[in-house]
């Protein structure tokens, strides 16, 4: 079997969302002498990328993404013995994510948290209707690299701006990247309030977080 075929087998195993299939494909790739980094990058991660695309197109859903991420994690753990100590467990970054005060919408924000987590970020989801000061406190507590601010109503959107102002007042703005999202948010709004990025959906949130933090 060529390397490309092995990579496809690994990717297909991740897309199948089945842990057993991923474990078997990883063992097979190892036995063929393929480097762990290549197995992860060209096989497992490529599969996760495809899962992300299928999620974006409404063909796969959150439980499937979670199962695929779990299966990939299992595959990576098999490879840990062959990898340098910190390479296997290193997180891509720490992100605090929540829906701003006055806004009880939860689902979109939770999907973003889960997708970021599945992509390898350490995510601290602090819930919905979160007092703005709690964002600052959690950022300090976790030494976060990024904060995600969700708002689904035009009336709660200004909360995103207020958190940015609070970050400035606390001297944290240069250290912490700010991502905003939610139905009424736009790229223009993000620029206007001085956020680092706007993400239209969960897949884009992962892409933008990687661009800014990795």
């Amino acid at each position: 079997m060529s390397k490309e075929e092995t990579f496809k087998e690994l990717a297909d195993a991740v897309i199948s969302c089945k842990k057993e299939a991923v474990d078997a494909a990883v063992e097979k790739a190892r036995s063929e002498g393929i480097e762990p980094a290549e197995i992860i990058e060209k096989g497992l991660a490529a599969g996760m990328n495809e899962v992300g695309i299928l999620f974006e197109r409404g063909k796969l859903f959150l439980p499937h993404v979670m199962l695929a991420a779990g299966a990939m994690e299992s595959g990576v753990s098999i490879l840990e013995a062959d990898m340098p100590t910190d390479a296997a467990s290193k997180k891509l970054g720490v992100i605090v994510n929540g829906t701003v005060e006055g806004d009880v919408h939860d689902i979109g924000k939770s999907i973003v948290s889960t997708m970021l987590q599945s992509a390898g970020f350490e995510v601290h989801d602090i819930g919905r209707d979160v007092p703005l000061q709690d964002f600052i406190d959690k950022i300090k507590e976790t030494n976060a690299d990024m904060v995600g601010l969700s708002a689904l109503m035009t009336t709660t959107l200004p909360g995103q701006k207020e958190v940015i102002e609070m970050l400035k007042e606390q001297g944290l703005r240069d250290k912490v990247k700010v991502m905003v999202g939610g139905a009424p948010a736009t790229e223009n709004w993000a620029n206007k309030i001085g956020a680092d990025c706007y993400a239209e959906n969960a897949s884009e949130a992962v892409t933008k977080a990687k661009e800014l933090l990795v």
Partner: protein
Amino acid sequence: MTTEYTTRMGDGQRILMTREQILADLKEGMADAADLGEIPDLSEDELDKLVDIIAMPARMVGVEPGKEVPVTHDIGTIRIDGDQGNSGVGIPSSRLVGVMMHERAFGADTMELGHIDYSYKPVKPVISNEQQTMEVCQQNTIIPLLYGAMPNLGLYYTPDGPFQNPGDLMKAFKIDEARASIEGAAKHATRDITWIMKKMMSSGTDGINFDTVGAAGDGDMYASLHAIEALRKEFPHIYIEAGMAGELTLGLHGDLQYDGKVLAGMWPHQQAPVVAKAGANIFGPVVNTNTSRSAAWNLGRAVTFVKAAVKASSIPCHVNMGMGVGGIPMFETPTIDAVSRASKAMVEVAGVDGI
């Protein structure tokens, strides 16, 4: 110099576009819908008609004579006295006054009585009050008056309800537990909606509106379909309207089925047949507005989706038109130029039966 027309972005911002730019955006929006939903493109004639509608010189436009459709309002009874926080205009009045104003002053064809929380679950403790209000409203109006609210499965999860939040469980990789939680919540919601509507029917309600079906994902839709089925069985002549929350049924569970069909991932043209199968009289398709795209892009996309839903539906389609849906900008009080253009397009191009 090329003529430019005033139109909008999806967030309501006023912009200028040429006919060529409008057509290009319409085509791009249409292509996005056709690709995602695997549905047909609009014809060249239909695209030309949409360009004409967007480029009309009047600030407000209307349908051609003879093409008028019924118009109903959902939360309208509290739109008068509600403040901006719930899309109202803050005029002190009662719900009865709200209903009567919509019937006698605004020309609504059907109307809905809704509770201030606008979800079914919180109606349970105040059911007697709702029944009494319905009776008084029925005594003072002649238009069909429905009772409506959101199925809102979210209220059955912690911290608002007895079931663990599937979002939290999912993040902890407890997928089976998350799915069990959704299934439990759906059963409770079906039971509550059915019980509430039995009470409301005894007070002279003309029907029920399920508003924002699927807002909490496929479990929400599952609960609603089973409630529709139960109500149709109990009340063969009840008028049931089911309006969706979004264009795509989100699969928070992922495997729930109705009539042998997986609910997750359904687009409007796939939602319509299952809603009809459950026993609804009216299907309300929804297409979400992208705030970063032009009104033309959004309208091309929305009309393509809704036209396919109308074609697939065996029951009348009353499209959801308002803030952030149906090609209308996401703006607290959507501008009349955008609302009237999008509505005209839905009637004359997508072929909807009502709004």
